[in-house]
């Protein structure tokens, strides 16, 4: 990609992204095109990361393992729902993902956890997300007993209006009381270590950047 084009793209993207400076946006754009690589040229039409490529990044770079959550994260990034993350979605998504304020992150996380997108996290959704969170005890009669109980505990803790499901208001209130509940149903944000590593690697000196 030529320098001029990059410059232009950076300028457009920087406008709707408040958490990155120009240099950082630049770096991220470069990274994006590096990741997309030859694939774009072959297809020629949509330039972006498809679900698999994106999930691969989440897994390798940010250490995420839960398939369902990774799918939801992809959806969170893929605003226009076209099955691939383009460069502007990439920059915008990362700005929340890496540098978002608590409000932005709450919104993002809630969207991730709201599997069917109906604005509520229902018991079923919770059950779904938590079903692998407990070690299966072979001795127990009902292996799902623990999960169900865990869902109940979570509801008791977070469902302030007692309607048996979590609205965004419920979720927001609970998170404001205890920040640890931000990622209540599974890690959907980078853990601090990989976060730092990622930023250190991507935003290092531009002269070295070309070596990647």
């Amino acid at each position, binding site marked *: 990609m030529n320098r001029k084009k990059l410059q232009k793209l950076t300028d457009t993207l920087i406008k709707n992204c408040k958490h990155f400076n120009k240099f950082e946006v630049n770096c991220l754009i470069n990274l994006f095109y590096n990741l997309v690589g030859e694939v774009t040229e072959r297809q020629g039409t949509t330039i972006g990361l498809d679900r698999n490529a994106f999930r691969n990044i989440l897994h390798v770079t940010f250490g995420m393992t839960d398939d369902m959550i990774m799918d939801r994260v992809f959806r969170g990034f893929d605003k226009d729902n076209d099955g691939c993350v383009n460069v502007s979605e990439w920059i915008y998504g990362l700005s929340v993902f890496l*540098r978002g304020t*608590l409000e932005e992150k709450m919104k993002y996380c809630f969207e991730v956890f709201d599997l069917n997108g109906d604005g509520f996290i229902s018991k079923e959704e919770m059950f779904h997300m938590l079903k692998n*969170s407990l*070690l299966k005890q072979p001795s127990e009669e009902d292996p799902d007993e623990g999960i169900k109980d865990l869902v109940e505990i979570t509801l008791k*803790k977070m469902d302030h209006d007692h309607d048996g499901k979590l609205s965004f208001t419920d979720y927001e209130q609970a998170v404001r009381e205890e920040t640890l509940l931000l990622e209540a149903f599974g890690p959907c944000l980078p853990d601090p270590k990989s976060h730092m590593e990622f930023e250190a690697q991507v935003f290092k000196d531009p002269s070295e950047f070309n070596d990647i």
Partner: protein
Amino acid sequence: MGVALRKSAQWTAAGYGARTLEITPLNEVILKEIMMFVESFIYKHPQEAKYVFAEPLEWKTSLDPSAFESGYIVSETTVKSEEVDKDGQPLLFLSVPHIKIRSFGQLSRFLLTAKDTKLKEAQACIEANRDPVTKILGLDYNAMKDDTSVVHILDKITKDGDPESEIKMKLGVLLKHLDLHLLNHSLKHISLEICLNPAIVKNDIERLKHLSGKGEQTVLESIDYTSDYEFSNGCRAPPWRQIHGEICYVVVKPHDVDTLCITCSAEGVFLNGGKTDDEGGINYERKSEIYKDLVTFLKEKSAKFLENMSKQDVRFSEEWKKEKELKEAPKKEEEPTLQKALPASGKSVLEKNQINFGKSQMTKRLEPSLNWKATVDFKDGGSAQESQEERHGGRLERSGPLVSPGRAQLVRKSAEKIEEIISESSSESEEDEEPPDHRQEANADLPSEYWQIQKLVKYLKGGNQTATVIALCSMKDFNLAQETCQLAIRDVGGLEVLINLLDTDEVKCKIGSLKILKEISHNPQIRRNIVDLGGLPIMVNILDSPHKSLKCLAAETIANVAKFRRARRAVRRHGGITKLVALLDCAQNSQEPAQSSLYDARDVEVARCGALALWSCSKSYANKEAIRKANGIPLLAGLLKTSHENMLIPVVGTLQECASEENYRAAIKAERIIENLVKNLNSENEQLQEHCAMAIYQCAEDKETRDLVRLHGGLKPLASLLNNTDNKERLAAVTGAIWKCSISKENVTKFREYKAIETLVGLLTDQPEEVLVNVVGALGECCQEYENRVLVRKCGGIQPLVNLLVGINQTLLVNVTKAVGACAAEPESMAIIDRLDGVRLLWSLLKNPHPDVKASAAWALCPCIQNAKDAGEMVRSFVGGLELVVNLLKSDNKEVLASVCAAITNIAKDQENLAVITDHGVVPLLSKLANTNNDKLRHHLAEAISRCCMWGRNRVAFGEYKAVAPLVRYLKSNDPNVHRATAQALYQLSEDADNCITMHENGAVKLLLDMVGSPDQDLQEAAAGCISNIRRLALATEKARYT
């Protein structure tokens, strides 16, 4: 005595024939009391002694008719008393071996006749007459006895109205009194007894087994149970014997005596009748006295056992000491006390034991530590060892990795312990004793929280990060300040999991876990458990984390945990102090990163938590040093400039703890900390004020600091804080600061200006001791000035001060004596002190065991004697007082000696008293002290000597006891006071020719010549006088030579 006999006396349980009284110490005491009552009855109540019993007391006596003397008609086999009732029947009738007695008078006389055998007779009498009261007072009384109210009996009897009934009533009352007396007595006695239980006995036996075998070093050859079957309650005795409290039977073969067959019962250990011929049978009859435990019993029976056991004991008691601090304290076990209380409430011994065994089944889990407690009470090193082993077992079960200590480990532990002792700070107050450990009983009614917490811990253990965070957040919603929840978390194994979580990489889990640990570590037991589980090193490591909130939480948790010394040491050992000091630095180079991460706290918060943890840690001496070495003082000084109360309190608290150390006080001066302390005295926060005052109190030992407090205007807030007396801790700190500050005169003037002295006098009553010590100390300093003495008198301060002279707190006494002494310098105050008998009180304090009190009292006596009217007479009026003072010259405390010398100087002003103390040998005692380098002692000693020269041949005597030569050397001292006193003494001594020669020989003349040139007139005069005496002697000698 009816009740006492029925309830307390221990009757042999299973009767072979007639029931007899057991020969237990308790019974013996009861019998003796009854005997004493009966014997003295005839003298104390002659009227009632004549009263004729409703029925005679009859028993078989072993007394021979020939023993009876006047007042009896004696024949071969019968004895009749001359005293008869109104029908002419004799009141005592003996027909060998049966005896009938019908009055207390005769009973008394009979016992007097019986002499040596009276105990036996009394026992026989009581055994034969199971209800003596009925026999004495008749059945109608007996019918009333269930109604315990004496009034009813009185009613009943007085209705008849005749004189006999009146006597009967009196007798009834007397017997009632005796009954009560006996009950009280037996209660005391019972409370001294130790109840054994199966577990204790088992331990004893196991331990002895361990130490038994062939060879010279073992304590016994063998020890075995007679039965292999152990009942579920731990007893081995057959059930029909268990109801008598018997636990098991053992056959012991000591080295030096025959095989012993022993019964271990709840009341103690005793020898039984041995094995009977039929298989496994035992003759249960008791054949010896009862001993409190097996070891005591065997020590009594076998010399070899005693010898070898004492060797073991030494070893065990050492081990036990070392072990003691590693263990949590024993669980509380109320049962023994409960049992002891029972006899009073009238339950029979048998019932008690049944209850005991019933309970011991239920509370099996609790028994080990019950043991431990019981054995510690016995101060029996041997049993302590056993329980130590056992506790080790307990620990192993619970915390896994602990290994039972081998020899090498013990050595290491003892070294640690020594280090620990030296490293302890004086300011350490709380929790030196390990608190009792309440474990919840497994089958007790558990609150619902318990089960919920148990479930959460299960999820903590078996969940991934997400489930763990949810469980942690949910756990946090419980009331973690409540002990039930705290202990529930521990008891379901939650502590281990929480601490393990700290060792993971999951920041969120660590935060959640610390948030819980921080709360529950307010509980002393949990703290210990956290330390036992190795939580501290991990938390110390977290202090290095890049996440500030983690640092904060870890520091706060450390602050909670480090409330006892083992924890503080652990923090230091793992480098925690340096890291905590580094946290303080955060606030300094305060560059908050623009982009703070989600879970992060502010820098100030980090510093605050650091200070909080340092505060807790600073209670150990070694930690204070470590904080100083880590350069913590400038950082603390820096933080002191902030204005956040919640930051200031831990910072000032730390400083206050550390100010007990000399180098800290220097540093505090250097860092200009006093200024800020004074500033914060004006804060609104009481706690902050308290700590500031406390820090000033610590620091104001130093003159410069006291001046600084004044210069920064700290005296006024201190004085005004005096008016608020509700918060006693703060009041103690404030009065302490005032005390120390008032050592400087300028400060005293200020305090007078602020009317602090009046307030202080007002605080002399109704205050806790910590406050009183300081208030009195401050008054003692203030009263060094005349105006203040008058002020104190006018405010009515003398009376409460003198009243405090009867206290027992040593520090308080030192201060009170000083204050009273200071007041006594003013004649009018002295008159009041004299009137209140204060001098006598001061004088009796000379007998106080603590040397500081003695010295202070002696100092205070000086002005008293100076200013009292008729001082000589007053001093003489204290019987034995002068001898007491003279004997204090044998003390080895320099301060006591100096003060006593000063007192003697004052006492000796009265010729008569001087004569008395001379008789008590004051001269040799003073002479013996002459070889000293202590200038204060020299000063007062020389004065005393100079005074004592005024009587008889004391001058010569001082010479004979070789006091002169050392005195001459005093002139080489640098202290002008010593010079003056010495010159005066030498002047007095020089009246004797031999002394002059000694002085001359020791080069006194040259030294004295220098003194003559002194600006001090008294010194000049005395020196000149002395020289003139010496010179005159020389002239006389010369003259004598030439004529």
